[in-house]
């Protein structure tokens, strides 16, 4: 998929002007955060579980080579196969080889962000294989040729009327006079259209929420049951996943699962949590004959041991974006690639480079809500700051911006001069704005004043008042 993260500003403006998107985002703002809050309130141990979840992931990452080898050993022992892929190219090639080995024509897919990351659908189509997304949201955006706009609700940017229009345009053999006014009807139609595809598919591809080293198993968590039909009915099941999904034991997975659904949808537990280990056993009446795990690196191993290692704890729950004021204003497509919101703002530069995705870590108010709700306590704002620093040291910002930062740095390192300047500027602005009490426009700050007024300073700076108070001995 072609990234458009470079044009974040234009993407964001388009998002702000898109009425349907704004209606959809309003629904999200009142939905996910409230449901998460209620779920967390019901589980007094939630905070303690976050700390444990963090330490499970940290422990696994510190010993990732060991756990990957153990996972492979156990997956092989249960009759599975493991394919290591350094790059998206290698991952796609591994999938194609498996598909070709069984002459696959139709491939059903459960939701997989790794498949999105490597652009799998486009690649399969080019090679004469039809990929069919089966998660309702993924199916809708596949019909619309759009990327997902959210980790767990990929079509969250759409209103039901848009979905109805899409179904009418794409399901041409159905009665054009049918009603599609209700979400219920849309769900039933997707169910009816996709059921034959599940049965016809030669290969089913799912992602993995977790990999369990102890047993060589993959775990998927879904609500629709599409992932289970995808992996149960075809002859071949391929799990597309990445290195950092590992946990050591089932007990560790259970802790992560207690965090996942509550953080994501506010459910106590998702409808379906499925642990898959190898292909069908002798005597089994159903299940795939082959079980493959494609393990993608794509730069993740380089993040270990550095300032972005913490990002590899991410369990893709979407709590950060559900609580992000920037995401809630511009939507997921503005981020221009597969991952959006705060986690996308950190991960996308890691995977595509800061030259491509440098806007994303700048698109933050640093309110810190993302870190507060993260089930594995990823310091997202801190890492966005790291990317800003990296962008600056690699001289990727525009010259005017850099000159401004240099000037600021020079002033900020001279406190006496800084305070004098602030005092002076405060008085000058206070005097200039004394009539109206605010400024409609300010030189060099037109971007800021274009959407709001600048209040005129009144009186003296906090710093000088504080200094005086300290001197007078009145404060503590």
């Amino acid at each position, binding site marked *: 998929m072609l990234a458009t993260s470079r044009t974040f500003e234009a993407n964001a403006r388009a998002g702000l002007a898109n009425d349907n998107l704004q209606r959809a985002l309003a*629904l*999200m703002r009142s*939905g*996910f955060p409230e449901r998460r809050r209620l779920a967390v309130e019901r*589980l007094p*141990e939630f905070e*303690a*579980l976050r700390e444990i979840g963090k330490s*499970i992931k940290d422990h696994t990452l510190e*010993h990732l*080579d060991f756990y990957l*080898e153990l996972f492979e050993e156990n997956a092989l022992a*249960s009759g599975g196969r493991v*394919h290591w*892929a*350094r790059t998206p190219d*290698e991952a796609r090639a591994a999938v194609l080889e498996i598909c070709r080995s069984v002459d696959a024509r139709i491939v059903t897919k459960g939701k997989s962000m790794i498949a999105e990351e490597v652009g799998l659908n486009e690649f399969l189509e080019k090679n004469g294989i039809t990929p069919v997304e089966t*998660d*309702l*949201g993924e199916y809708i955006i596949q019909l619309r040729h759009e990327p997902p706009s959210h980790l767990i*609700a990929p079509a*969250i940017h759409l209103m*039901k009327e848009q979905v109805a229009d899409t179904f009418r345009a794409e399901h041409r053999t159905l009665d054009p006079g049918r009603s599609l006014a209700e*979400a219920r009807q849309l769900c039933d139609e*997707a*169910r009816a259209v996709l*059921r034959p595809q*599940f049965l016809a598919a030669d290969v089913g591809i799912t992602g993995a929420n977790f990999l369990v*080293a*102890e*047993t060589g198993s993959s775990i998927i968590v879904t*609500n*629709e*049951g*599409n992932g*289970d039909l995808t992996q*149960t*009915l075809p002859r071949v099941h391929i799990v597309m996943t990445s290195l950092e999904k590992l946990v*050591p034991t*089932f*007990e560790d997975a*259970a802790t992560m*699962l207690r965090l996942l659904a509550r953080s994501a949808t506010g459910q*106590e*537990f998702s*409808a*379906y*949590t*499925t*642990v898959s*280990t*190898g*292909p069908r*056993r002798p005597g089994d009446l159903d*299940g795939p004959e082959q079980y493959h795990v494609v393990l993608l690196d794509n730069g993740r191993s*380089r*993040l*270990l*041991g*550095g300032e972005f290692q913490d990002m590899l704890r991410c369990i893709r729950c979407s709590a950060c974006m559900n609580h992000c004021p920037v995401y809630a204003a511009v939507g997921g497509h503005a981020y221009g690639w597969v991952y959006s919101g705060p986690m996308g703002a950190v991960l996308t530069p890691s995977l595509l480079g800061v030259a491509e995705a440098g806007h994303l870590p700048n698109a933050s108010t640093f309110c810190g809500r993302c870190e507060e709700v993260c089930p594995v306590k990823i310091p997202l704002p801190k890492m966005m700051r790291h990317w800003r620093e990296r962008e600056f040291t690699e001289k990727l910002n525009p010259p005017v911006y850099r000159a401004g930062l240099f000037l600021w740095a020079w002033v900020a390192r001279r406190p006496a001069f800084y305070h004098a300047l602030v005092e002076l500027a405060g008085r000058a602005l206070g005097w200039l704005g004394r009539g109206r009490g605010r400024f409609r426009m300010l030189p060099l700050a037109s971007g800021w004043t274009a959407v709001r007024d600048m209040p005129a300073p009144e009186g003296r700076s906090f710093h000088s008042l504080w200094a005086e108070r300290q001197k007078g001995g009145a404060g503590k």
Partner: protein
Amino acid sequence: MTAAREQILSGIRSSLKRGRLDPGREAELRARVTAHGRNLIPARASALDHRARIDLFVAMAEEVQATVAPVNSFAAVPETVACYLAEENLPAELVLAPDPSLDDIPWDARPLLRIRRGRAETGDAVSLTPCFAAIAETGTVMLISAADTPTTLNFLPDTHIVVVRQNQVVATYEDGWDRLRVACAGHRLPRAINFITGPSRTGDIEQRIELGAHGPRRLHVILVDDREEKGEHEGQ
């Protein structure tokens, strides 16, 4: 592929600024895995007696739109199934997991119920399966794949009826997993382990929850009191 494998593993080690772990450390990590110690277990599910565990299971399952019918014995199951199908306007047809644990159910008592044993096929409207365990913590049923318990029964039909024996109700996921470890001692795990919590659902259109996205629209639990001396055995 081997080149990719070696390069990824050596890349990980160089990022972590170390070589391969020494055998002593690897042995410690293996011991951690073998011990598979439990992490924090929510108080909600721990220290419950038998009755409280059953009550929690039922309350949590009903909260996610599963329906629960308690019965006193296997003898009552055919009647309960027939009534449920009639109430829901469903055909009196079942596909049954060919599992010996369901042999105690006297289907002859309801000769009008048409029963087939096997995996689910297209067009099967209602399935009936046993479960491996039920988990009180979130009202979840735990099912495993085997020759006698095909996975398609859990997902293809519109209605899934699960027979849960009271003694199968455990407190937590970890308790269910421990039972599985005992049951599989010396063998491989089953291919699929399904933790199912309520019927299929989606919120993908305007975040409105709709039941029956791709999996079953209804999940009906028949909870059989199989304790030998009812009302006395607590715990277990």
